[in-house]
């Protein structure tokens, strides 16, 4: 552990891991409740075109990814609001277009190695400048969650009630999608675009096995996020593994442990809390199945 702190790039990467571990599950809690678990995946595909454009034009790939993925997220939200039936296919077109565009644009630029590092994450190439950009974006994301949290909570609970409370539903929907896009860009260097969405969803799925409230789910998910990002990174340094898959597999291990822990916890609660006369409307097992299903 102390050995890896002697390397500059590892110190940078560890700070980055903490930022990713905090932001991805914070945004992910809203995304999961809104049943958009795969949104991050789609944005990740689109971001690849941004990276390609950045490399091609000699600009920063992070900047390119940020611009294109935020635009893509806004486009996804507009398509979703426009039509329910056509949106599905339109989204698929956007995702595959983004992936194919990215692969074509990055093709031939330093032999495809940079593509590999963006797809699955690479920490050795992370610079201090990258860290400053990521830190700035992370502060922005957490600021949005803090400022708009109350409104986003109601939006994700029930869109019609949010509208009948006078909330700017369209603006908030675009805001949460754009924030997810920024989170994808924050996480892509360490985790990679193909796995980035896992850190938005898996810690939340794990946390909700153990918690009863929305805020507590978010906080526990952020804890799980930081834990898996930091230890996944340390493990990948120790055993020379790619960081993205290590982080995601650790988060999945926490999820499995949480499912077991949650089952035990619920048994204990039902034993201590006297059963109410009327039946529960939904069980948490059903909720779990829904999350796993998409």
């Amino acid at each position: 552990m102390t050995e890896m702190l002697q390397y500059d790039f590892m110190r940078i990467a560890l700070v980055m891991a903490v930022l990713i571990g905090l932001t991805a599950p914070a945004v992910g809690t809203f995304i999961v409740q809104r049943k958009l678990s795969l949104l991050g995946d789609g944005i990740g595909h689109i971001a690849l075109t941004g990276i390609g454009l950045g490399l091609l034009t000699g600009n920063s790939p992070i900047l390119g990814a940020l611009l294109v993925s935020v635009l893509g997220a806004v486009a996804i939200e507009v398509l979703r609001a426009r039509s329910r039936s056509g949106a599905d296919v339109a989204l698929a077109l956007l995702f595959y277009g983004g992936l194919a565009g990215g692969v074509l644009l990055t093709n031939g630029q330093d032999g495809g190695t940079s593509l590999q590092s963006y797809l699955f994450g690479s920490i050795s190439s992370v610079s201090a400048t990258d860290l400053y950009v990521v830190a700035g974006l992370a502060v922005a994301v957490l600021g949005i969650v803090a400022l708009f949290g109350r409104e986003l909570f109601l939006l994700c609970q029930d869109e019609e009630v949010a509208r009948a409370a006078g909330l700017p539903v369209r603006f908030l929907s675009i805001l949460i999608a754009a924030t997810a896009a920024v989170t994808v860009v924050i996480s892509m260097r360490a985790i990679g675009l193909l796995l980035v969405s896992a850190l938005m969803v898996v810690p939340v799925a794990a946390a909700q096995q153990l918690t009863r409230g929305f805020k507590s789910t978010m906080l526990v998910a952020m804890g799980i996020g930081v834990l898996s990002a930091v230890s996944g990174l340390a493990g990948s340094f120790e055993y020379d593994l790619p960081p993205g898959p290590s982080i995601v597999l650790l988060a999945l291990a926490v999820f499995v442990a949480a499912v077991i822990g949650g089952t035990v916890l619920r048994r204990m609660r039902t034993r201590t809390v006297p059963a109410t006369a009327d039946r529960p409307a939904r069980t948490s097992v059903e909720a779990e199945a829904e999350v796993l299903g998409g």
Partner: protein
Amino acid sequence: MTVIHPGGSAAQPAPFEMTGGHVRLEGRDVLRGIDLTVEPGDVLAVMGPNGAGKSTLIKALLGLIPLSSGRTEIFGAAPARFRDWKRIGYVPQRLPMGGGVPATVREVVSSGRVARQSRWRPTSAADRAAVDSALEAVGLSHRARDSAHLLSGGQQQRVLIARALAGEPEVFVMDEPTAGVDAASQAALARTLRDLTAAGRTVVLVTHELGPLAPLITRSIVLDHGRMANDSAALTAHLSTETGTPA
């Protein structure tokens, strides 16, 4: 939000006023030419068989479903131009599960304050007090820290009503608050409704059967195939004289 009539007297605009309201959904006429004015202080029951358009009507009144023809106003303004949403409390049919992220009863009820809170202001003592008394009113103070989705259907319904109560609106719009609700929750609902009517609040509620709510209703309309089959303020007068026993 008052309208000055040509005569010079100021009158409060009606909470809801729909004229010739027509709604077409997926090629089907769900509402056909509804004329309905809900006056301040009305306790209006919207009744009728399944698929008669009851829920569509109240969603159209709130502007959640657009009219294909006709017009509707909330306190004298078209829904798209209406800004004073804190005057309205909407109680939907159920608490959606969404992606399964839990929320405590208190979190759900607190979200009813959102129309009264500014983005930059943290939760105030007044917010907390309103949430406390809303929980008290529906008899769920002791479940405040529990996950709302693990409560019974009737208790969830009370959580949704408490959310609307927490916003302290003038007008309540409730979609089937009594459907599939246990006796204890029905009694809690009737109690809450009695307090609201005593305080002069306006209530529009969709229901299959009036049950214990009957004595509180001042007016009822019956929808059938998207038309108004019956508007009976008379039922009201009759009921209010016979306190407690529905005709």
